């Protein structure tokens, strides 16, 4: 046991812990006046962590008795998580000022959640996995209810908490089963144990445990049939937090799911592939059909994210290197599209109140043409229409699926994407074809404008930046399959 090298391996996480605790102290002394400062400082802390993530050596390193792993795969996910958290805090600052949610805990809790997610993606043991999940979940429960005087927010938080705790329980139960039947919790040891299993029937307990673990993690990525909480929580939580919910925890849980299924449970590929196949197909189809009738844009985004998770899981069903690479690419694209869309949703205000009804977007192209173009870009991108970014996400996902001979799933998925195109188009229709209502409150604020326009530029010109992203994701995916 030598602590120092281990701590150096985990230097981005350590940095975040130390800075978060300092900021917490600072906030506790100064009080809610310090919210602005704490927000900016936490953005700086995360940028610092991001720099450390980028500059960490590329090869695979484990630390803390193999509890913790750092590789390109984890690093890429960490960058995505940090980017989404930073953008969330930027979006949240003007929003919180207007809605009067001036708690200094807000950025601190996001930092803790980010820390939990970074531990999740770096987990190399069932125990550290669980610790990471709990740290992020507990922070997120509080964030969902941060608007204490709002019934909806409280309901969302409570629902999230109860169901989240249930899923954590299921996860923990599965982990205990796996431990009981294999005698280890470390991913590395589990791989070795399972390799000797081939042809042996005594692994039924492990499979049951695996199913429980998958159910728990499927809840975290809100895949069908564990998706029920998503629309309610999305609707009730404050909008910047919804944006955060839609991206960061899903990135973390998806990465974790991939790592755990590919690495220690790789031997059980045939068993878990069927389950993930079903979850993926069901998510794509439900995401496509259930969103059609939604009136609230946040609920619509919830179903849309369920659908996207279905598409991403196709890459996992493929179970090959290009599938994992496609998942990373899709998550990146998903981050850009979602942050952009939620920034637009944040700009939907009338008489200083949020409006969330989709019909309120009618005729936006007359009152705010730039925002109209941006939303249109995001919607066409989510529908997967080339040449926008969303198309490339889907293209590489289904390319991997074809390589794994998943023809049925590919055709199902693409047809689901046609159905989902309908409700994305409905928003475009409202914006361009319908008569104008009153303008939304102007100006929308420079943070929102910059993020919206920036993200739509990224989505439109994604064809020019796809190559470096593909290279990075290829390296990241390769590290997972190297062993």
């Amino acid at each position: 046991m030598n602590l120092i090298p281990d701590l150096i391996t985990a230097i981005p996480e350590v940095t975040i812990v130390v800075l978060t605790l300092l900021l917490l102290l600072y906030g506790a002394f100064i009080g809610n006046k310090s919210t602005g400062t704490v927000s900016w400082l936490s953005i700086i802390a995360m940028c610092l962590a991001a720099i450390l993530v980028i500059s960490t050596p590329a090869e695979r390193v484990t630390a803390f008795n193999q509890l913790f792993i750092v590789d390109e795969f984890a690093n890429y996910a960490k960058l995505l998580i940090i980017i989404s958290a930073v953008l969330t805090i930027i979006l949240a600052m003007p929003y919180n000022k207007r809605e009067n949610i001036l708690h200094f805990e807000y950025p601190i809790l996001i930092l803790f959640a980010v820390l939990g997610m970074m531990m999740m993606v770096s987990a190399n043991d069932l125990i550290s996995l669980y610790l990471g999940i709990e740290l992020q979940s507990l922070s997120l429960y509080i964030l969902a209810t941060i608007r204490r005087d709002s019934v909806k927010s409280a309901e969302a938080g409570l629902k999230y908490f109860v169901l989240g705790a249930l899923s954590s329980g299921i996860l923990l139960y599965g982990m205990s089963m796996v431990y009981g039947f294999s005698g280890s919790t470390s991913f590395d040891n589990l791989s070795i144990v399972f390799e000797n299993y081939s042809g042996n029937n005594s692994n039924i307990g492990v499979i049951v445990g695996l199913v429980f673990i998958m159910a728990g993690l499927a809840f975290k990525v809100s895949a069908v049939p564990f998706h029920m909480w998503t629309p309610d929580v999305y609707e009730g939580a404050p909008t910047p937090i919804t944006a955060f919910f839609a991206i960061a925890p899903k990135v973390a849980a998806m990465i974790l799911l991939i790592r755990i299924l590919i690495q220690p449970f790789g031997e059980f590929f045939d068993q878990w592939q069927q389950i993930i196949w079903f979850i993926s197909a069901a998510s794509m189809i439900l995401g496509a059909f259930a969103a059609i009738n939604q009136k609230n844009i946040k609920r619509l985004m919830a179903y849309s994210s369920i659908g996207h998770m279905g598409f991403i899981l196709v890459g996992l069903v493929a179970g090959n290197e290009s599938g994992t690479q496609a998942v990373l690419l899709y998550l990146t694209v998903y981050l850009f599209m979602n942050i952009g869309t939620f920034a637009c949703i944040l700009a939907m205000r009338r008489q200083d109140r949020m409006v969330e009804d989709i019909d309120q977007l009618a005729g936006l192209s007359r009152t705010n043409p730039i925002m109209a173009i941006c939303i249109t870009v995001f919607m066409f991108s989510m529908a997967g229409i080339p040449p926008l970014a969303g198309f490339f996400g889907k293209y590489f996902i289904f390319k991997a699926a074809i390589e794994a001979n998943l023809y049925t799933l590919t055709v199902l998925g693409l047809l689901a994407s046609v159905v989902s195109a309908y409700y994305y188009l409905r928003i475009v229709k409202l914006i361009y074809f319908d008569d104008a209502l009153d303008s939304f409150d102007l100006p929308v604020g420079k943070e929102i404008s910059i993020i919206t326009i920036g993200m739509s530029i990224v989505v439109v010109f994604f064809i020019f930046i796809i190559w470096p992203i593909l290279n990075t994701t290829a390296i990241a995916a390769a590290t997972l399959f190297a062993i």
Partner: protein
Amino acid sequence: MEFFPVISLITFLPLIGVLFILLVRGDEETVARNARYTAIWTSSATFIVSLFLWINFDNTTADFQFVEKIEWIPGFSTSYHVGVDGISIFFVLLSAALTPICVLASWKSITKRVREYMIAFLILETMMIGTFVALDFLLFYIFFEGVLIPMFIIIGVWGGERRVYSAFKFFLYTLAGSVLLLVAILVLHYESGTTDIPELLSYNVPVEIQPWLWIAFFASFAVKMPMWPVHTWLPDAHVEAPTAGSVILAGVLLKMGGYGFLRFSLPMLPIASEQFTPLIYTLSVVAIIYTSLVALAQEDMKKLIAYSSVAHMGFVTIGIFTASQYGLQGSIFQMLSHGIISAALFLCVGVVYDRIHSRDINRYGGLVKRMPKYSAIFMLFVLGSVALPGTSGFIGEFMILIGAYKANTWVALLATTGIILGAAYMLYMYRRVIFGELLKDDLKEILDLDFRELCIFTPLIILVIWMGIWPQPFLDVMDVSVKNLLENYQLALNR
């Protein structure tokens, strides 16, 4: 001049126009005026540059010319690869020629949101030209699908009463077909390891998967074409789209389906194409006879022309799948000719629609007394559409029918009835609109074509007559490419 990227210039020049339009500031009137002028100048410039392609085109080789290839996604053997050959060059010219005409045709009829309209049209032009010059399957798909976005907006914003329904139907129909094409592209990529079209053309696709790929291709191209029974989006889209939207739909977008069959289905999947030829013949013959009869019963001029387009496209598919020199050249020629004639017919409808705001045939009658110039021009295009010798329509359909007689006499015989029916519905419509008593009061005040409208029609008139009397320059250009395609096709069948 050797390495001048002329194709990229043609493809992306309209986008530069878009940038300029975006930069225009000022009150609504100024913006509209500047948007119109920028659009007409950029699209005309694009057309002039595209003429350069034709002038410098080498008739003696079947290779792709003016090729540009830039690495794009290296690990996936996908590149930015563009070029033209004898098959695609005329489609590029057609797209480049029709866009300025469309802009001119919308000069006065589009008064609201002119800036967005012109932007949509210029983006549409880039996408259309890109579709025909792309020599990478993924790149082709990107342009092919990208067309949907501006067209959806054009139909939905500037269309008629049922524009929302039509726009959705158009979009979802086409998208549903196209995703199957995407699956086929992915399978081809997996099998061959490349998406490069020249490489795929020389790649022998395994016989077992050819039928599946063919069906997937067919799903996309048949919807786009459109073939019976997936043609129902077309009448709706045509009726509701603004005049210029209909012109582009009929003039260029329908040709993408035919181009797809020519470029992909036939040469890449020869064995499956051979197997499925009876299916194509059947559907085409049904399309020709059925939609002609439907056209006969139409009261709406645009709908009538839309159904006639389906029938004319039936000839094209027959010609392509006869896999003969006459059939293929006839098909390409027919697509070009139909691109011009149907565009002109929609413009003719647009002329009276701008004045009376009705497309109902019964709403008109006796126009010849007030509008002699219009009646003469309309007559010419109607006759072109019914394939009168001396017009371009005759050459195309005649060549197709020669090819079809050699391949299958019954198909040719049944298809010929389409020409008779075509004459019936077109002339019947013409008689009711142009001749008869001038009874309606507002028609008594109607004005003949003005200078701008004459400018729109003049190039189309010249082309229709030129192609009808002296088609050789057009046929020469496509000759070698078509021969080469057919040689490879026969080789693949005999292997």
